[in-house]
């Protein structure tokens, strides 16, 4: 009997650990950034909540993988002020995904991250989304706090 209870406890603990993995304290629900700095464009990188890949939180990079920006958690969004010109964003687990944007000053762009099926771990998928679609999808996302 004791052995059965112990097994159930271990399974429950395992499920709890899995469900908590990748969770983070997110900030307030999506609000538009008030002011875009001069000579910069604004890129919102967001990840709507989904059934698959909740425990996977890929790192987001720019500058061809050289500059780390943040971890993208499920249900989160991250505003990034980019300098005008070509700017790329990438994320990787067992495979890499990247998109490149032509940033114009004062303009707003949306990049969506989804997690798809993979061999051992979910694979990130970045995509540039039109503002009219993105604004609906990002509405429930919460701010990913800046890492120190």
């Amino acid at each position, binding site marked *: 009997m004791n052995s059965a209870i112990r097994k159930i406890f271990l399974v429950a603990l395992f499920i709890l650990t899995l469900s908590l993995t990748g969770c983070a304290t997110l900030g307030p629900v999506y609000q538009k950034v008030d002011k875009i700095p001069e000579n910069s464009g604004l890129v919102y990188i967001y990840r709507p909540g*989904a*059934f*698959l*890949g909740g425990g996977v939180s890929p790192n987001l990079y720019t500058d061809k993988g050289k500059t780390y920006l943040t971890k993208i958690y499920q249900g989160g969004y991250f505003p990034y002020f980019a300098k005008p*010109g*070509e700017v*790329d964003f*990438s994320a990787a687990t067992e*495979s*890499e*995904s*990247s*998109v*490149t944007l*032509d940033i114009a000053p004062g303009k707003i762009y949306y990049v969506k991250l*989804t*997690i*798809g*099926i*993979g*061999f051992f771990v979910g*694979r990130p*998928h*970045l*995509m*540039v*989304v039109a503002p009219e679609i993105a604004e609906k999808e990002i509405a429930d996302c919460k701010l990913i706090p800046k890492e120190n």
Partner: protein
Amino acid sequence: MKIVFLTQLRLPIMINIILDISKKVLFLTLAVFIVSCAIEANIVPKFEKLESITILVNGKIDYSGNKEYFPRTISDTPSKDPLLIIKYQYQVSYGKVTGPEGLNLFNPLLIVGFPIGQDTLVVAGKLDIIRQNEVIKTYSAACTYEKTRNLFYQGPTFSELRRTGLLNIRDNIEAQMYKDREFLSKVNKNDFPKEKTMGGIK
């Protein structure tokens, strides 16, 4: 004794059957894999890439993007009062097709390379040659890419596809300009012929 005899008799037949099934499965796997890891590229209009590049037109360039994507058949003449202004712009659109991701978890065919999603990318470029505030010639080209992903093959990223697309558009416009070289040789002169027909995609 009887069992040993039967096993000895049936073993070659069973091996043959297994080999036969294996061949079919292998063939099917290969077929699915090959079909599902393809990149389909299409560019319009169809033009052969030039082997060597020569300058065909001079003017003030109105383009602020990456110089690598700008047609090399044009040279910049920065002046306050240019005879020709050459304006280049491009647009990139993204698309993605995926079924319900949750269903993929229960799809055994994924292990033989069944597609898990498709990415599409459309790149369009347009070059205007403007003389005295009038567009005298337009060259345009567009290319589409369709990439199918599976468990074993992700293919190039959107960034890589975008770059390939923009370079192909550049090459295509260069080839269109080369075909028009006689006309372009006159645009810098005062008695150039006005042409209303646009090049490339109408």
